[in-house]
């Protein structure tokens, strides 16, 4: 299908990209295009200008920050994330996620920044980033700012990015020796979209010291504070984790549709939360 009339720009730096986004009232950022091109074909979006950031060198980098956090450029593709020795060493669950999205063709083009900025409720990365306590570095006309993943996802397909702003990178905090990550998902098919997802970051040294749990596939990823509180101070036994997971589901509010009822999605999210914490507390 023919796309609507538009102008295409390929800036070489973040500064140029931000200037283009600012100068044009109706511009869209193009990275991997694995959602945006379909949205253009379907006339869901009508940008005057596409600003292609997929070749900006700084957005393609993966590197450690001085504080130990892993900086992943927004235009890093899923397959690059999966193959990166830095990501595999520092955040193996994140790397594995990059290898299990959709299919090989999409993984070759789709980007972590696109996944985050689309804020599709069923997307893989948002609940993981919330559980990890990731920060998002945003560039705009007034320079750079950082925002917690926790506060970035405002509603389905709506983020805290302001008009004219560009996601620069995702910052994953370094994992301490006693911190582990779990991610569990109830997918409709292999590497497909999901009915429920849950992610957990747990600090445990025989006793759970700290836990962050986020559910995905509701309108936005949502922290499970009651479950987190119930985990802290407990030994990571199956019974203790199951008892804490019984408190999960707060604020989740998934849709009910032809694929599953809201009640079923909530029940399954609780199961995913329990399994994610189990995965994050099992001895490797």
């Amino acid at each position, binding site marked *: 299908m023919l796309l609507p009339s*538009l*102008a295409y720009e390929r800036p070489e730096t973040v500064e140029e990209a931000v200037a283009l986004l600012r100068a044009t009232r109706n511009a869209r950022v193009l990275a991997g295009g694995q959602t945006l091109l379909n949205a253009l074909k379907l006339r869901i979006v009508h940008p005057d200008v596409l600003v292609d950031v997929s070749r900006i060198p700084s957005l393609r980098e993966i590197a450690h920050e001085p504080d130990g956090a892993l900086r992943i450029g927004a235009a890093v593709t899923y397959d690059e994330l999966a193959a990166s020795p830095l990501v595999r060493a520092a955040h193996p669950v994140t790397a594995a996620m990059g290898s299990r999205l*959709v299919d*090989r063709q999409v993984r070759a083009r789709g980007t972590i920044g696109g996944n985050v900025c689309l804020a599709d409720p069923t997307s893989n990365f948002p609940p993981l980033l919330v559980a990890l306590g990731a920060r998002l570095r945003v560039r705009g006309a007034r320079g750079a700012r950082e925002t917690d993943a926790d506060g970035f996802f405002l509603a389905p397909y709506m983020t805290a990015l302001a008009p004219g702003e560009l996601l620069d990178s995702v910052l994953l905090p370094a994992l301490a020796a006693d911190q582990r990550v779990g991610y569990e998902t109830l997918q409709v098919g292999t590497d497909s979209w999901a009915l429920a997802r849950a992610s957990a970051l747990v600090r445990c040294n025989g006793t759970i010291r700290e836990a962050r749990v986020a559910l995905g596939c509701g309108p936005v990823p949502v922290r499970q504070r009651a479950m987190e509180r119930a985990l802290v101070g407990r030994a990571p036994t199956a019974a203790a984790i199951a008892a804490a997971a019984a408190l999960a589901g707060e604020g989740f509010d998934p849709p009910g549709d032809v694929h599953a009822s809201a009640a079923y999605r909530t029940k399954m999210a609780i199961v995913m939360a329990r399994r994610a914490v189990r995965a994050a507390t099992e001895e490797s």
Partner: protein
Amino acid sequence: MPDSVHAIELTVNGEPHEAVVPGRQLLVHFIRDTLGLRGTHIGCDSGNCGACTVIVDGKAVKSCMQLAVQADGRALETVEGLSGPGEEPNDLQAAFTRHHALQCGYCTPGMLMSATALLEQAEELSLDEIRRGLKGNICRCTGYVNIVRAVEDVAARRGLA
């Protein structure tokens, strides 16, 4: 806003090409209509079926899901590059024939290009990896078993199994 136009340079099956493309032109339309290479098929036009799969810089991609201008500076390989007119089919094409890995044939160019990239990128390929590796390509005749067998056969012959 008027369409932008862009001069691009790329290689197509090893040959250098220069072209001027509208910013909104999909890569698949550039391949079929501008280059005249009709082996690359349009199936769903929504990134689901994989019939339009080509290889860009060594990676299989769906050519209906990127712009032609985004192929600027890249190496593009289409199904026509697997074996030239009058040449013997390459080993993968021969395996597809041997294993009856095509029925109506519509998905075949995409299957061949996905499998080509999969075989070239892998150091070893299990049956599960072949199946997952071809997940982005739909065969509406549901001839998957023979397609996977053909790729398995090539993987074994290339020492990847």
